[in-house]
């Protein structure tokens, strides 16, 4: 009985409290909304690291405007950390074993459209940091590594230890840039120069950020480099099918003012270069 009375009281109390409570909370909610709104709008223009609305927030990456190499993201205490070259594929085994058949190329996106020159093995990149990757192919399948397909007699001239590069690759977060020089002899003799072209193009690519929607197609850009290093005749040699990707790749080369001047020992007046870009595979 007492319980019931209590119950009734509490029910009634609850009822009274309920309606009063509700209206007071509506009021509180309105106040809270006002506060949130004020907070948002009064601080919407402020950015960290700036005293004003026009200056942007502190951004370490804006030094993309400065032509310095990146700092190695490795342990500073480990002196030798940067000296370990990234794992790169071993120099290819003798050519006879590994030549892939023309119809044997399983992954369409990884297919290397043959430029006029035969393919050459990846060089073991002497600089420690850029991860030289053999064509994004899975490491477990060595037969997929591109290997010399040229007639064997020609391959003999470069067969000694060391590398013959007409082509080099740099893999970065935005994807893999690969450069191929049509003059095979140039590439072997001036390996360091090809490496520089690749790095320069790859760095332009990073700073001209890629459209997040770009899918895994490959675009080929072809251009000449004159004696003094000026790039000329920049054009899309083969589009990827994605115009945004094509235009971004084209822009990346067009924005380069100059490459290093051609090596003194090279007697030609210019070289022809094909650059192709593989965006990273999206999950």
């Amino acid at each position, binding site marked *: 009985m007492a319980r019931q009375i209590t*119950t009734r009281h*509490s029910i009634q109390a*609850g009822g009274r*409290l309920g309606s009063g409570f509700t209206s007071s909370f509506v009021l*509180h909610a309105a106040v809270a909304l006002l*506060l*949130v709104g004020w907070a948002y709008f*009064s*601080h919407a223009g402020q950015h960290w690291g700036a005293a004003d609305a026009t200056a942007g927030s502190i951004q370490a990456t804006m030094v993309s405007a400065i032509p310095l190499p990146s700092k190695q993201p490795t342990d500073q205490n480990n002196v030798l950390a940067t000296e370990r070259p990234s794992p790169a594929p071993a120099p290819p085994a003798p050519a006879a074993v590994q030549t892939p058949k023309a119809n044997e190329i399983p992954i369409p996106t990884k297919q290397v459209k043959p430029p006029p020159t035969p393919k050459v093995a990846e060089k073991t990149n002497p600089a420690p940091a850029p991860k030289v990757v053999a064509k994004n192919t899975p490491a477990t399948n060595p037969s997929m590594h591109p290997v010399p397909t040229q007639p064997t007699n020609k391959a003999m001239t470069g067969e000694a230890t060391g590398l013959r590069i007409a082509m080099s690759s740099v893999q970065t977060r935005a994807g893999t840039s690969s450069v191929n020089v049509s003059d095979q002899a140039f590439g072997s003799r001036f390996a360091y120069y090809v490496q520089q072209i690749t790095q320069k193009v790859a760095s332009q690519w990073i700073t001209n950020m890629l459209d997040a929607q770009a899918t895994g197609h490959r675009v080929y850009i072809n251009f000449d480099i004159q004696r003094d290093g000026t790039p000329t005749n920049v054009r899309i040699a083969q589009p990827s099918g994605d115009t945004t990707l094509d235009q971004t790749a084209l822009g990346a080369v067009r924005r380069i003012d100059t490459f290093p001047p051609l090596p003194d020992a090279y007697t030609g007046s210019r070289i022809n270069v094909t650059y192709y870009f593989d965006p990273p595979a999206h999950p």
Partner: protein
Amino acid sequence: MKIGVTEYQYQSLRSARALAVLSLGVLALAGCHHKTVAPPAAATAPPTPAPTANLTAEPLAVDLGQSVVLNWRTTDATSVSIDGLGPVAVNGTQTVTPSSSTNFHLTAKGDGGSAEANVRVTVRVPTTPTTSDNGNSDAENASADKVFHQNVPDIFFDYDSYTLRPEGQTSAQKAAAYLTSHPEIKITIGGYCDERGSAEYNLALGENRANSAKTALVNAGISASRIRVVSFGKEKQFCTDATESCYQQNRRAQFSIDR
């Protein structure tokens, strides 16, 4: 069943109340969290009596190697300093032997503000007494300078500013009055800045300060052809302490006779 409902209601009310307290607390936190940028506050002077200062030198012109006695009196000042001598007593004398003609400049600071006094001592080099361009001897020029500086006070400015303060306007009026009564005098106005900030910008700012002073004189009727303007930026300092009072000393347009 009813009891169950009641308990549920009690519990729900309790948790509602807890939620309410919690959210109000968070709201309060949110309000406190937002920082506001405090604008730099400008200092205002309290209205206590301003100090006064008086500085004399005896004699005003000497030969090289002779001594001069500086004598100063101040009122309502708590700290007094003279350029080149450092902090001094509020009243006192000092014997100096300047090696070249020197502007002695005294600053008296007190609760009511600050005051200054100048006196110029001319030192004659031991060759034949030279006559300056206007045909007067150095002694005559020195005494004319002294009278001039007593009647034509320098104008001081706020930081990064080249607009005349009210006391600057007063000084300009005084200067104009003196120049009107001495129509033969031509003047140079030098613009100066304190040592903070950049050399280049301060040269431009010094120029603006001197020009402001010139404009004030011209508006008071002095012919612009009698006034020459030179900016020294922060290249010539009247004092070199890193204190606000020294900075103020350096932010000025200085009048001097143009010979």
